[in-house]
């Protein structure tokens, strides 16, 4: 069953992306071609196969809970688009 342009718009909303009206058909068509490509996985018997999230099945190490560096706020905020008094600026959230 092909995914509709409304479905694609719903996914785009989850991903915080906008799709212009004149592009939606093209985006939907390509999206469906990729879904067709990955659909063949459904034919493979994976009964009882443990999903693999790390190629060596490694556990992630934890670091000792200790201060190892000082964060330079000014240097980090130099790359921010809008900053004031050490705060990141965003549009008004609550009226």
């Amino acid at each position, binding site marked *: 069953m092909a*995914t509709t342009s409304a479905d*694609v718009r719903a*996914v*785009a909303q*989850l*991903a*915080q*992306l*906008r799709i212009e009206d004149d592009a939606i058909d093209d*985006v939907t068509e*390509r*999206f469906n*071609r*990729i*879904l067709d*490509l*990955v*659909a*063949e*996985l*459904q034919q*493979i018997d*994976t009964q009882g*196969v*443990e*999903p*693999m*999230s*790390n*190629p*060596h099945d*490694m556990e*992630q*190490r*934890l*670091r000792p809970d200790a201060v190892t560096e000082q964060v*330079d706020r000014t*240097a*980090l905020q*130099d*790359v*921010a*688009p*809008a900053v004031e008094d050490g705060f*990141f600026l*965003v*549009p*008004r*959230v609550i009226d």
Partner: protein
Amino acid sequence: MAPSELSAATAVALSAALRAKTLSSYELTQACLATIAKDNPALNAVITVSEEQALADAARADDILARGDGGPLTGIPLLHKDIFCTRGVTTTCASRMLENFVPPYDATVVTRLREAGTVMLGKTNMDEFAMGSSTETSRFGVTRNPWDTTRVPGGSSGGAAAAVAAGFAPLGTGTDTGGSIRQPASLCGITGLKPTYGRVSRLGIVAFASSLDQAGPMTRTAEDAALMLQVMSGVDPMDSTSADIEVPDFRGQLGDSIAGLRIGIPRQYFSADLDPRVAQSVHAALQELQREGAQLVDIELPHTDRGIPTYYIIAPAEASANLSRYDGVRFGHRCDAPADPQDLYERSRTEGFGDEVKRRILVGTYALSAGFYDAYFKKAQQVRRLISQDFSRAFQSCDVIAGPAAPGVAFGLGTKTSDPLAMYLEDIYTLSVNLAGLPGMSIPAGRVDGLPVGLQLIGRAFDEATLLRVAHRFQMNTEHHLATPSSAGEPT
């Protein structure tokens, strides 16, 4: 060394000249910068040149060399793929999203290579966020293949591959999530190695798919790759997925014989997708290895053709999560005059990302969304294990796997951009290796119609040393790796 010889020289040869004082790092760096200034406009392989810093680093390297100190890479110029964070030097990932991003810190790979005395000349072009196999999705325009400028260099590390092939620098860094070091290395006729997942720290590498991404060397020879990998490898407390496993002396083992080594040839890597002329070059290379005493063994990797669908769920899913950080608030592109937070996020992301990146975010978001997670993401992770088990089984009867790195030679610019699926096929022989987390390498193995062909070598986890040994042995007995685009027309 004459200036014309510099551009084809290896790091090993250049290092010898630096130590013999027949060349200074400053002169070498100037020569590389001059080559970039002359030839980059035609190739667009380099998108940022850090000339002032490079010359200062070179002068510092000369001081170290004058004292008789330093290591084998002291004073050697290199180019970093523009995915590695470089403090004070723009790091764009070839995206509008990061067009003006100047990182406040260095990637661990950048730190380690700098501490080894290398001289960074600048940053190389790539597919946007490393998503592509042709370097055509870059915000800063396509990179052209130095062997034929009407063709692509491969991708996503296409800028690095083109730059090393064109003699801009002997060394480049690349990253490989599904083939992004090996396929461009194959298409540009250079040596490229993707290490085992966990061998090299990912700290400071702009994240694409975190369970697949690895950084590796792009060089003219296996010996240079060994030197670079030595410096790049090792556990990093700042990357919890970097492996706490001993790093062997890669260069020290290069000279060992390959007699008796079992090389597995997967039947599935010579299917109808492969250009028969590429197959011929690969077979000739395998015969050369046989002459050196290696045994060729037929093996099966039955899930090879499942690699593409598996990868095109897992990589976009991980990418959609990683790229959710770009919200127009802390760094990266921000839209003009956002009306409210929703408008800020949506417009900043929609303006900042290119089409292929958006396409993968959509697919990934879909595969992870409620109701589809089990059918797509979990299913792909299960097939990933089957692919990994194929390799484990194969390595019971062989020590190394060999085959083509890409299904063909460099293709024409624009010929695959309209069909994402045709582009995805470029990585059919490489992306299973990322899914299994294994080391893989591409080395030049001849030419078809004057265009380079790559031989891929795949090893057991953390056994880069054997790949390098096989590659070095091959390069000692053949001259494919010595061919350069400028010498291509000359009789050999």
